[in-house]
């Protein structure tokens, strides 16, 4: 394992992938799904996909207009992606697909480690990176460090401006731990 495992999935590993997807939010025009759950000994990668039946700017029209008047995006315009462990640790990241202001008002990185190096027993890091947006689809790849403890793992996601309040859908960490056991290194990392 590397000191920087908390930042991103480990390069040089074959991850244990699960076929399941988790419906984390369904509105009248928009749905959010967590998929490509990929487990490693160090943590969990997953992908959030948001699909919209119509132009998301029209779906969020009222909120966009209000944000345009103030010059700052309202919090409801942000896509929320979060993870909660059974021991109470929780990290929520905000990102955005559409917005009225240039800077987005996303604020500070909220799940920065409490100490360096981060403590896998105390910290929960959620990195949302590599997002890609098109006309009707938004995709973000996420990384959770460390692996969740036994019990339920909750995905706290939502997009209030598009009619998806922030909710929590859980899966059992047992299937993630089993998938992590299938992960394997490409090279002898112990010798590095």
């Amino acid at each position: 394992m590397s000191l920087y495992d908390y930042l991103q999935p480990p390069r040089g590993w074959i991850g244990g992938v699960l076929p399941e997807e988790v419906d984390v939010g369904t509105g009248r025009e928009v749905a959010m799904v967590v998929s490509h759950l990929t487990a490693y000994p160090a943590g969990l990668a997953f992908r959030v996909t948001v699909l919209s039946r119509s132009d998301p700017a029209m779906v969020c029209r009222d909120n966009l207009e209000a944000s345009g008047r103030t010059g700052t995006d309202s919090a409801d315009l942000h896509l929320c992606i979060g993870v909660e462990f059974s021991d109470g640790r929780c990290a929520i990241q905000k990102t955005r697909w559409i917005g009225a202001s240039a800077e987005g008002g996303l604020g500070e990185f909220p799940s920065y480690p409490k100490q360096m190096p981060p403590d896998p027993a105390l910290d929960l890091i959620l990195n949302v990176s590599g997002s890609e947006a098109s006309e009707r689809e938004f995709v973000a790849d996420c990384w959770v460090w460390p692996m969740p403890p036994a019990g339920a793992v909750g995905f706290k996601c939502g997009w209030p401006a598009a009619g998806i309040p922030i909710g929590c859908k859980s899966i059992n960490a047992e299937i993630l731990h089993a998938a992590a056991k299938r992960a394997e290194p490409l090279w002898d990392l112990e010798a590095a």
Partner: protein
Amino acid sequence: MSASVSDDGNWTQPKWWGPPSGWFGGVIPRELVLGLSDTAAVMVTHLSVYPTGVAFRLRAFKRPAVPAARIPNPVDQFPIEDSPKIGSGEFRDAADESLIGQSSWEEESSLMDQLKFAVEFEDGRRAERSAPVGGPGDFTIIAFQEGKAVAPDPIESIVLNGRSSSSGPDELVEDRFVWPLPLSGSLAFSCCWSAVGIPERRVELGEAIWREALERAHRLRLAP
């Protein structure tokens, strides 16, 4: 994103361009190791099957913090059907091995550029990273982007379109979409990256694997 203009003036994404609008793909729960040497690896990850094709991520990267020793090659152990089969097609030119060991940004980019990658169907259709359209006719992605009335043939053509990409000194990441689905049989990925010691190698995804994932693909489901 480019697309075509329909009669009513709206932009319409052609089927070969990428995943169909309003669909969640069915995940293939495995990551494929196409090539591995002491210094680099090539993988296919994030495989999703749609009714119109397969989306995936091509990753080529250098070994992090190169160790001296090496364990048995996981490529040889990875349980993919018929894994160690040499590709039937051939890549068009050989890589320049003189680039090994060079380190500037441009040189590293050239190293990444030398990665050869292809997708093949059992019926012989083949598309390459450097030649993304296979099949008869005059269809090319550039001709389409220039507004010409061209389209690939779903029975005889194959298109390997690029959706997004990023590259740095140590890693290349490309999100790709291959259109259409094979009529039957396996879907094969092959790569060759001679400059880092990865010979041509092919990995097949059996028909049962991609069809099982296809059953998990579904349309956007909305609240009433």
